[in-house]
């Protein structure tokens, strides 16, 4: 037990002393995941809207596919992307393997089904009168779509937060396509995995604390949003 306590104290010291290696890992983690969520969200929410409010052939099949993709493990996405980006793969000439771009692509793929599925649920629950009112008040279709999205913004924020929580905490895909290169592609989760195998628990615990604090913050944000939603209603 004393060993664990010692590791926790060391972890806190590392965090608050501003250890450059540790903070670079944290910066890379947030940088990659924030970019991934930024790229994935607009298209995913557009698809979610079309699935919720459009009428086209294959709509139900698409919804089922996106729900199925929710269950795909990160390592499977990582493996697929590795094959595609490896030198002998179809996109090997782009030379993206073991780069932050590859990690971002992987996290976009991981977050996309969550954003579409949860966005679809939120938008399906939206009131059809919101769309009709916006159209009748002269809003063009794209603006009416934004209005409907604004009306269910708490549900959509929840989708974004859930997707962000998933990709910043995933390890399989980042490890496979990022390669865990120090100061370049090493992020919080790949660093924790590596430090644990090395027996360097303090660094692992410090990074674990960052993830726990993040998880707490995301949950508090979600709870605050739900409370606000109830208050509005």
């Amino acid at each position, binding site marked *: 037990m004393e060993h664990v306590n010692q590791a926790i104290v060391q972890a806190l010291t590392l965090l608050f002393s501003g250890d450059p290696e540790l903070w670079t890992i944290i910066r890379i983690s947030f940088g990659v995941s924030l970019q991934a969520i930024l790229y994935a969200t607009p298209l995913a929410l557009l698809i979610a809207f079309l699935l919720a409010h459009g009428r086209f052939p294959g709509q139900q099949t698409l919804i089922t596919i996106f729900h199925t993709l929710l269950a795909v493990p990160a390592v499977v996405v990582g493996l697929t992307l590795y094959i595609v980006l490896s030198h002998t793969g179809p996109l090997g000439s782009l030379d993206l393997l073991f780069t932050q771009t590859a990690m971002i692509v992987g996290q976009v793929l991981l977050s996309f089904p969550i954003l579409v599925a949860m966005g679809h649920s939120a938008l399906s629950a939206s009131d059809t009168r*919101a769309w*009709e*009112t*916006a159209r*009748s008040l002269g809003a063009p279709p794209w603006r009416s779509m934004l209005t409907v999205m604004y009306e269910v913004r708490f549900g959509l924020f929840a989708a974004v937060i859930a997707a962000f929580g998933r990709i910043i905490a995933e390890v399989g895909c980042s490890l496979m396509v990022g390669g865990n290169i120090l100061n370049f592609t090493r992020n919080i989760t790949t660093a924790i995995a590596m430090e644990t195998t090395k027996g360097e628990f303090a660094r692992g615990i410090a990074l674990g604390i960052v993830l726990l604090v993040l998880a707490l913050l995301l949950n508090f944000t979600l709870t605050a949003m739900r409370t606000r939603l109830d208050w509005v209603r």
Partner: protein
Amino acid sequence: MKPVLLEFHNVVKSYGDRILLHVNEFDVIQGFCTLVSGDNGAGKTTLLKILAGLLKPERADVVVNGIQLSWHKARIRFLKNIAFVHQDPYMLDTTVERNLAYGLRMARVPKDQIEDKVAEGLHWARLDHLMHRKAKRLSGGEKQRVALTRARILAPRALILDEPTANMDLQSRIATYQLIQQLRDEGMAVVVASHDRSGLEPLADRHLQLTGGKLVPVDMVARHHPSIDNVTRFPRN
């Protein structure tokens, strides 16, 4: 004689195998209030949504200002020139003031003019005291008045109202009647679907009943417009 803004011929709308609407003729006339009544499920809301361009019929020949248009082109005009107000009007999740400004912002009206128009609209409907209130938290009657003002502020050619006085207390109903009358008197074409015959018939220039998917004129004495004789014959089923 008042100008006819829109003419609809052979409007057909069905759900599955069931033909819900088969209206031979219907027109929307400037400064004229048309009351459409009918049983629940008769298709009143469907008809109104078609008139407002919110619902596509299987078939409809549309004449706008004497020119026959395809449904696609007619629909674009309807959405620009006709305002639709739901039975339980949808309030955007913001203040009353921003609800009223929404359509003006969509029409790219300059900001200072938006403020003036919103203030004038609030005054018109005697809603000044609700300006900064959350629109979703208003009573049913207040929402209806905000919705009417929100539509009026855009100066549409026609206003389509679906059961505007449903579930309202007497005071709210009277306030709504007054606003509808004012809109009609301002020259707006008003089409109202309602069960509230006793309250709305005195305001209406003609009364049509939707029955079996067809519009049938209901005998009514022309009260407001001497020109009514020219139009009470519609629809010619």
